[in-house]
């Protein structure tokens, strides 16, 4: 029999409380340990928004570096692997009748978004300012004209084409994240139309504001907002769109009591493992080069994720959830925490130290747990796989955390974050979040409305009952015999 209330020394709970206590102290530790960076880091201080910043000034710019090229090729492939990883993460969590529809939607993101990106998307995100900095000029790199294989991208030591394909992988995974919110009930045609429109009309502008060198009203990157690898551009953006989408589509039939639990948790674990692995390309690759900053991003990504995974498991363990007995640390909770940690460290990864990363990971799991386990049931919306609760909430937290824990050498004029005595950085972070949240919410809503009128967003009731694998794709994942 499990503990009924409180804890008894010597029982499993005791160690957990210690762990929770240690993590709780992280903010203090972080302040003490994240000291000023070396001179080498200072030299890179202008590179505020990392990989994507076309206005960044790096000394070695002008020539292509083979080491940087090798790393960024690998990093691009790593980021691509995240989308199939996400597919299995999501696919394992849905019911058996819908797994192929989720895998299919993820693969469609890899196909459809890549084509759009090559045709015009890259230009919309990274072309010169148009409409007062709102979006990149679509004519600049239309059909990838003018993106060179043998000339460095401005501010970097890798070619324009390599920069383009690295960024392409980010554009692929962002709409794929949203899939979890409307899983098991959205019509496939509506999904394709929404994804295509969303990438061009929501993702590309926001990427342009933060990374594309936008100036003026939309110039979040130019303002000094810290978003190393895509906290606002990717996770807040997708998380908010996901929240809007699941509210507009409505609940799945039978939600919450009539929905069966995840049909294949080992798939979800496999997917989470691939995400963790691929995320090294996502974050460390966002340095744009094989530098000390890439190593920093790699290290803190791993540490924040580890802390977040353990935090979520610890929360489940100490909270009484099952019939008044003590809770159990679950596999699903652990991987959910890991993903929350990965999301949260993303915007901060190039800027914070290893102890700051512990704080980022700890906060991510606490906040996401509260949203997933408490707020969502109270609010009553059916975010099928908790895209908002995990990506949205941890993305918001990470964007703020970057402003808290950034070490001196980064942030506005290299002054670091709140804990380095630069509270203004948090304000700038909030501004970037506000722009992204408002824009993503409003435009996603309009796009969904338009798609609803043209295609209809939701599968028919009967189709939803039978499952989207059979009704939308005419195949099944698991045959009855053999």
């Amino acid at each position, binding site marked *: 029999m499990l503990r009924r209330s409180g804890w008894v020394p010597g029982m499993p709970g005791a160690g957990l409380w210690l762990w929770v206590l240690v993590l709780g102290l992280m903010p203090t530790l972080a302040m003490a340990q994240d000291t000023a960076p070396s001179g080498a880091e200072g030299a890179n201080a202008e590179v505020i928004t990392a990989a994507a910043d076309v206005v960044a000034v790096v000394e070695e710019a002008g020539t292509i570096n083979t080491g940087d090229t090798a790393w960024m090729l690998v990093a691009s492939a790593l980021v691509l692997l995240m989308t199939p990883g996400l597919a299995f993460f999501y696919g394992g969590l849905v019911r058996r009748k819908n797994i192929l529809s989720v895998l299919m939607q993820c693969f469609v993101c890899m196909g459809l978004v890549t084509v759009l990106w090559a045709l015009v998307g890259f230009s919309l995100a990274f072309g010169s300012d148009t409409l007062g900095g709102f979006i990149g000029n679509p004519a600049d790199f239309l059909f990838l004209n003018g993106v060179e294989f043998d000339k460095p991208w401005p501010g970097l030591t890798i070619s324009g084409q390599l920069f383009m394909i690295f960024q392409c992988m980010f554009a692929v995974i962002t709409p794929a994240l949203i899939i979890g919110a409307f899983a098991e009930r959205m019509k496939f045609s509506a999904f394709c139309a929404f994804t295509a429109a969303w990438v061009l009309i929501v993702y590309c502008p926001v990427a342009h504001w933060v990374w594309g060198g936008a100036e003026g009203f939309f110039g979040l990157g130019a303002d000094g907002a810290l978003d190393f690898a895509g906290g606002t551009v990717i996770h807040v953006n997708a998380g908010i769109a996901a929240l809007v989408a699941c509210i507009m589509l409505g609940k799945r039939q039978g939600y*919450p009591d009539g929905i*069966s*639990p*995840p049909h294949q948790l080992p798939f979800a674990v496999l997917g989470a493992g691939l995400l963790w692995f691929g995320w090294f390309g996502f974050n460390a690759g966002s340095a744009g080069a094989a530098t000390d900053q890439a190593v920093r991003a790699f290290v803190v990504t791993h540490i924040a994720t580890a802390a977040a995974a353990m935090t979520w498991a610890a*929360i*489940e363990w100490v*909270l009484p*959830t*099952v*019939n008044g007995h003590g*809770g*159990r640390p*679950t596999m*699903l*909770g652990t991987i*959910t925490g890991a993903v929350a940690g990965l999301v949260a460290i993303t915007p901060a990864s190039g800027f914070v130290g290893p102890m700051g990363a512990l704080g980022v990971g700890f906060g991510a799991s606490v906040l996401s*747990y509260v949203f*997933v*386990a*408490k707020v969502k*049931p109270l609010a009553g919306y059916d975010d099928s796989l*908790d895209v908002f609760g995990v990506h949205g909430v941890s993305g918001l937290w990470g964007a703020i955390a970057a402003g808290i824990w950034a070490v001196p050498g980064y942030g506005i004029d290299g002054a670091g974050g709140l804990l380095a005595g630069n509270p203004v950085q948090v304000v700038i972070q909030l501004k970037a979040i506000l722009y992204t949240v408002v824009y993503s919410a409003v435009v996603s809503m309009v796009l969904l409305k338009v798609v609803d009128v043209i295609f209809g967003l939701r599968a028919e009731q009967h189709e939803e009952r039978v499952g989207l694998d059979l009704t939308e794709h005419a195949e099944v994942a698991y045959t009855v015999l053999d």
Partner: protein
Amino acid sequence: MKYIIAVIQPERVHDVLDQLEAKGIHLVTTSTVKGRGRQKGLTHQYRGLKSTSTLIEKVKLEIAVNDEYLETAVEAIETGACTEQIGDGKIFVTDLEQCIRIRTGERGSAAIG
């Protein structure tokens, strides 16, 4: 000839099979089934949310026996499956009209063994 259908806890299957084997009853067919009874549901937790499944996984055993083996088989199942907890399961016994061994075409009692 009798036909025994027993629905038991999955974790007791090996004990029941051992008991049957010890009594010389080799023939048995098993399947995984889902059902509900007095045990009600099992509660799982998913991302902090409770989920109670009303159908619980059980194992169904089907055994055809000649009349003189009936009590032996039933006792073996009871011995192997009983934990005195709700959810231990049930044993049903019905008359068996015919039994045919496909390989040889034998009929009746001879075909069972």
